[in-house]
């Protein structure tokens, strides 16, 4: 193989990396907030799926992608409030509630999609998607243009989202309160911070961003909903939070790393010359996730009150 081929192969992978990482970035940065406040939302997968479905449905009937996005946002708020009600107010086991969310999310979105869309005779189930933005000159730079300047708006929002999340978490009184509530809720309580309120807010932030991450799947990448289309991205986002050391930048870096494997897998599948069955390649991102988690098993930094309901 000559250099040009290799270069094309690598840039092809990198060009898909950020796009593949985008839903993970949304969900994992959101989940950083939830977990830093002490709540582990194992239901990301379900929330992402319902977010994707509702965004698709709203966009399908209204014809507006922005209304689709708005629908995902509301979905996130509602599911976040519901999750917080169970885990913070009722103090139910967070793992159990999360699992229930995943099962229900998959079942409900699949059922509704089947009964609303598949059983009717729409001529097409496709919706328009967010177009790639084009930048004068920049998009045309060889390789770099492909890698950085040919995405849609939802991808570019992450450029703002991540620094903003980091700023909020580390440079505001709100962020200080979030971190204290997840690490030593009793101390926060004695200083007049409402542990429940903080956790509600953070779970909702996490849920909204996760639902938006789901919306990117239907509004930007595919042009319709498919049953269980998230295929584990919610869980990989959870892993990205851990691998990223519970920080927005870390979770983003981890998401991008997992994004590389998604992209690699897609790229290799597209090459006819490879003899491996494609299922082996599809496994790549998940194997990468497991290896990543094994590599950080001794790392400190998990919020000390993570997963523990607060009782004063």
């Amino acid at each position, binding site marked *: 193989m000559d250099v040009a081929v290799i270069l094309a192969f690598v840039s092809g992978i990198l060009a898909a990396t950020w796009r593949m990482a985008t839903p993970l970035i949304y969900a994992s940065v959101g989940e950083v907030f939830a977990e830093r406040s002490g709540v582990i939302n194992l239901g990301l997968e379900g929330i992402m799926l319902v977010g994707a479905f509702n965004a698709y449905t709203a966009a399908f009937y209204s014809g507006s992608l922005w209304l689709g996005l708005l629908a995902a946002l509301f979905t996130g708020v509602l599911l976040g409030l519901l999750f917080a009600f169970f885990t913070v107010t009722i103090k139910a086991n967070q793992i159990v509630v999360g699992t229930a969310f995943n099962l229900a999310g998959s079942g409900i979105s699949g059922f509704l999609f089947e009964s609303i869309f598949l059983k009717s005779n729409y001529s097409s189930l496709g919706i328009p998607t967010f177009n790639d933005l084009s930048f004068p000159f920049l998009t045309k730079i060889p390789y770099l243009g492909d890698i950085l300047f040919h995405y849609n708006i939802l991808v570019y929002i992450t450029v703002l989202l991540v620094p903003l999340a980091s700023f909020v978490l580390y*440079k*505001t*009184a*709100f962020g*200080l*309160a979030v*971190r*204290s509530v997840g*690490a*030593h809720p*009793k*101390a*926060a*309580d*004695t*200083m*007049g*911070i*409402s542990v429940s309120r903080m956790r509600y807010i953070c779970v909702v932030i996490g849920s909204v961003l996760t639902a938006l991450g789901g919306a990117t799947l239907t509004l930007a990448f595919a042009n319709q909903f498919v049953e269980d289309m998230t295929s584990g991205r919610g869980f990989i986002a959870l892993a990205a939070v851990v691998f990223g050391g519970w920080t927005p930048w870390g979770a983003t870096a981890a998401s991008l790393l997992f994004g590389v494997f998604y992209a690699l897998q897609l790229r290799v599948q597209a090459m006819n010359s490879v003899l491996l069955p494609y299922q082996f390649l599809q496994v790549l991102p998940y194997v990468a996730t497991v290896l990543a988690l094994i590599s950080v098993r001794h790392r400190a930094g998990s919020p000390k009150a993570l997963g523990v309901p607060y009782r*004063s």
Partner: protein
Amino acid sequence: MNSPILRMENIVKTFPGVVANRGVNLEIRRGEIHALLGENGAGKTVLMSILYGLYVPDSGTIYLNGQPITIKSPKDAIAKRIGMVHQHFMLEPTLTVAENIILGQFPSWTILNKQRIGEVHEKIRSLSNQFGLGVDPAARVSRLSVGEQQRVEILKVLYHGADLLILDEPTAVLTPQEASRLLEFLRDLAKKGLTTIFITHKLDEVMQVSDRVTVLRDGQVIGTCETRETNPRALAKMMVGREVLMDLHRKLASPGEPVLAISNLRVRDARGLPVVKGVSFTVRAGEIVGVAGVSGNGQSELALAIAGLIDDVAFDRFQLEGKDVTRRDLRAASHRHSAHIPEDRQKMGMVLPFSVSENFILEEYSSPRFARHGFLRGQAIRSYSQNQVKKFDIKVSDVSEEIANLSGGNQQKVVVARELDRHPGFLLVNQPTRGIDIGATEFVHQQILAQRDGGTGILLISTDLEEIFALSDRILVIFEGEIIGELPSDRSQVEKVGLMMAGKRDPDRE
């Protein structure tokens, strides 16, 4: 000066199954140091938590400066200039001193930029200088000693402008020197007009520092008196409800053969750092060897190592009842030759959801006394348990009751009864009376002494110096994982032991 700053009237607070406060009346005068004395479980902390807004009382009224007020949350309390230093510090170790202090102070959207943080640091520094607390606002709390953390807690309260300060058992975690420095500091604060409520169960502290004292028992006020008009014996009687033996009568020890001989014992913690650094000592039959030290200096790991309950252990020699033990069979040998009263009774000493009788047979359940052909002998277990309950005066409705429902003192008696019944040659005792009432403490102490007189060699680990001096025949002082000295158990040595607990290897040479 003598107008009441605070009056609590008829405070009632119940938790499921427990009445913590049954109609408590308390009056605090402006500028005084008021001791709130009572045994564990008497309701002192609950009463103060109500005042600080952590609990809402079922009924009762609080008057501050003559006005009835309601305090629904710590935020209300802080706004009304009430501050509390909790027994377990409310500091998050990964944050800095300043971050801990300003938690909850600013509205959510406040940006904590360099300038704002700088102002906060400046204010903390000037307060710290004003009161001579020596606190660095930029320091991370995890790097501070326990004494320094307590000063941060006090500073936190002063920072928020409190003029009523509540301290919950503030000396429990301090060395004797640190404790007396704290008490002096409280006197200084009182001179500056601060009112202090001081929760304690230590009589000498009450006598030393307070102006008045209120005694609580079983959630009720037994009485309030001027400190100078009372004495420790009278206070103890109010606190316990009967005459208390203030001093144990201890016969001279007659030590025999060594039952435990250790040389160069080393333990590493989970991160691989040494926590016990080459400890050597001997315990002989019929003597009590006390290990004194501030909590967290390797005592827990030392105890776990001797009981064979920790992995990363090494030693040159380990003998139990004259027999050499290797690293591999340490656990089995320790179980065979010794009994262990562990430091955390609820986590290590018992199975909380099990009944009292099940807890009695936790170790011997498979012996022929309690089991035949693999089946438990219900009747035998029951009558054995009833016997033990009677012998150790354990208050329980039936031996089938869950041990979780018992008071701390009665739970500890179950553990002690079970361990002593194994008639060990060597007994390892770690914090045997932490968090239990005076009556139970007295009983446990007597049992330990009786065991010694019966010829058992005992290693007593305790952070309570009173306990060490009351029971031990010899005292070892542990500091940062090393035994840095051995002294005779004599009250005249208290100050020396205190200095050694703070790390002074040779206090005489100063």
